[in-house]
């Protein structure tokens, strides 16, 4: 029987299927962090239940950790991290704590270890688990009750997701990145457009992306309301995985690759919905509002709420502009920022840092602008330093930090002050997300870097070319 990629992965993990019940789905990898797990471990303790498969479970510290040297000073954050350490020890779960060479944001750590592989089911108490779908894994965020369920049973009762193809045809122009693709997708289908669906990103523009860029695309599937995002595994995927610490070796590798090659949507399979995106028409994209669907090409202006046909959209736009302190008609390129944040599970990988470093090299961060550069993991930081990227950033006046979720969300010391405005490579521009009263514009690493230099929302094409020649 023909099927889509996500249906094939789903069917391979059904433990039990019965009329009138959700499917019971086996989980291959359960990633854990300090924020959404304490109440789950407490539930196990109260019920006297063990963790069924500690060997399929991995924990890291990321949301609360400060990105400057030294211990956690916030006592509440400290207790949460210490609670995770205690829980992992008690239940035998492997943990990469702060300071460990494998520590980092959970969605950066899994792939770099080779733990995320095609055809797997991956869950984490974090909505950006969709990131792992870049490998052709079915990966999705879950709540704390479900975290407890997976810890206790290594399964989840779930109803099959609907399927949506996102066909990104043609090729991307120079300076247009994976982040611009996904922001454009979200603006097109809306923050609820993917509700109930697994999005499968397809087409030449997707096939041409690196693994890290594919992770950026899949990461923000949740911002379109989707349960998960997936990309069929191919030679790019296999080349990325080969030789990683947890990737199969020898005959196992051959057997795995044989299976992975079967993980493609059949030609005659039918999606529940399809969306077409013309890659060649895309340009650098930024958000102007307070949900990730409120975005436009950088070349456009802040929209007039009155221009929205739908009443609910009109009201949302008016609320957003009031919160963001923006006037309709202002060219987005003239919006001045205070802070630039480069990092997060969306754009905190080595290729993101390389792309931004190439823009700021030989240039300087604009007066009055602070730029935080936060590698997604300790390994990414180590690699960047080996390539000299840290010096490029610090010589440009940026702040080179330790790995963590950092300014993506206001749970650690890296926050925006009320009224402060950021260009951020993270994934959410919700009110107060980066700190109470903070105003967020979501951008790609290239736009973040150019914005840091010009001080207003910009792409590298807006920068004078002379420095580029020198670099």
């Amino acid at each position, binding site marked *: 029987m023909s099927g889509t990629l996500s249906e094939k992965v789903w069917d391979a993990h059904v433990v039990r299927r019965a009329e009138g019940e959700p499917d019971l789905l086996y989980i*291959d990898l359960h990633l854990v962090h300090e*924020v959404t797990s304490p109440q789950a471990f407490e539930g196990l303790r109260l019920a006297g239940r063990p963790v069924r498969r500690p060997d399929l479970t991995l924990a890291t510290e990321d*949301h609360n950790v400060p990105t400057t040297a030294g211990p956690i000073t916030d006592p509440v954050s400290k207790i949460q991290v210490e609670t995770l350490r205690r829980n992992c020890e008690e239940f035998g779960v492997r943990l990469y704590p702060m300071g460990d060479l494998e520590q980092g944001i959970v969605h950066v750590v899994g792939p770099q270890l080779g733990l995320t592989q095609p055809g797997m089911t991956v869950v984490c108490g974090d909505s950006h688990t969709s990131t792992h779908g870049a490998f052709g894994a079915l990966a999705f965020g*879950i709540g704390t009750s479900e975290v407890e369920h997976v810890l*206790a049973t290594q399964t989840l*009762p779930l109803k099959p997701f609907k399927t949506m193809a996102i066909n990104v045809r043609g090729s991307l122009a120079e300076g247009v990145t994976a982040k611009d693709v996904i922001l454009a997708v979200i603006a097109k289908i809306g923050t609820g457009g993917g509700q109930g669906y697994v999005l499968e990103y397809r087409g030449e523009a997707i096939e041409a992306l690196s693994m890290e860029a594919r992770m950026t695309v899949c990461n923000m599937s949740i911002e379109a309301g989707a349960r998960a995002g997936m990309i069929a595994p191919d030679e790019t995927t296999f080349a990325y995985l080969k030789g990683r610490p947890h990737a199969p070796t020898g005959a196992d590798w051959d057997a795995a690759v044989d299976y992975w090659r079967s993980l493609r949507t059949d030609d005659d399979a039918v999606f529940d919905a399809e969306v077409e995106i013309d890659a060649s028409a895309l340009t650098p994209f930024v958000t102007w509002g307070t*949900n990730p669907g409120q975005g436009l090409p950088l070349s456009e202006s802040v929209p007039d709420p009155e221009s929205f046909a739908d009443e609910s959209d009109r009201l949302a736009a008016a609320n957003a502009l009031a919160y963001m302190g923006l006037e309709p008609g202002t060219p987005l390129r003239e919006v001045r920022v205070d802070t630039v944040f480069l990092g997060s599970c969306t754009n905190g990988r080595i290729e993101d840092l390389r792309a931004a470093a190439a823009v700021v090299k030989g240039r300087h961060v604009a007066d009055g602008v602070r730029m935080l550069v936060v590698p997604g993991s300790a390994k990414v930081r180590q690699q960047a330093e080996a390539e000299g990227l840290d010096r490029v950033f610090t010589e440009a006046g940026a702040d080179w930090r330790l790995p963590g979720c950092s300014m993506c969300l206001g749970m650690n010391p890296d926050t925006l002050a009320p009224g402060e405005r950021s260009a951020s490579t993270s994934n959410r521009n919700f009110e107060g997300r980066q700190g109470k009263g903070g105003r967020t514009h979501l951008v790609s690493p290239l736009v973040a870097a150019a914005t840091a230099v010009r001080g207003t929302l910009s792409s590298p094409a807006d920068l004078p070319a002379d420095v580029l020649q020198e670099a």
Partner: protein
Amino acid sequence: MDKFETHTGVGVPLRRSNVDTDQIIPAVYLKRVARTGFEDGLFASWRKDQAFVLNNPVYAAGSVLVAGPDFGTGSSREHAVWALMDYGFRVVISSRFADIFRGNSGKGGLLAAVVSQDNVELLWKYLENHPGAEITVDLVSRTVTAGEIVAPFEIDDYTRWRLLEGLDDIGLTLRHEDEVSRFEQGRPSWKPVTTPA
């Protein structure tokens, strides 16, 4: 989990779409390790505004929230459900819920009732014209009643059954533990484990 059959309580009109979980409870409240006591974080930022609906004393005992479409988008934080329940809400009504939020609601015993946007508009108008009025939400008949308004709501059969019976998901799954063990025996040997490579 307590059984849920019917609930009658003060309806609170929240005329906003895309109420994301960062608005329901900001990240700063997520540092706690306890399971209760999240009511102070509920809509923390909006509650600083005196005009916000929950600051109107007439809604102090509110337990049925009537919100715009795409309620609960964003982060997977179950704290959003806990905050609503700790505050006293038992039901949220919206024309569309984010998937993870809806799932979390079912686990925690909060009823996420999907009502058409036309009926949400009627409920808003009714509640605004009768501040402090009660709404009855009947899970058995899947209807919402407020004054003259009787609106059907949708909820999937399985979640409805679990709520009606007050059943714990993990206990239900553990009944099938032998099937899980059988499945595990058939997994390919090359699937990765997290223990040292």
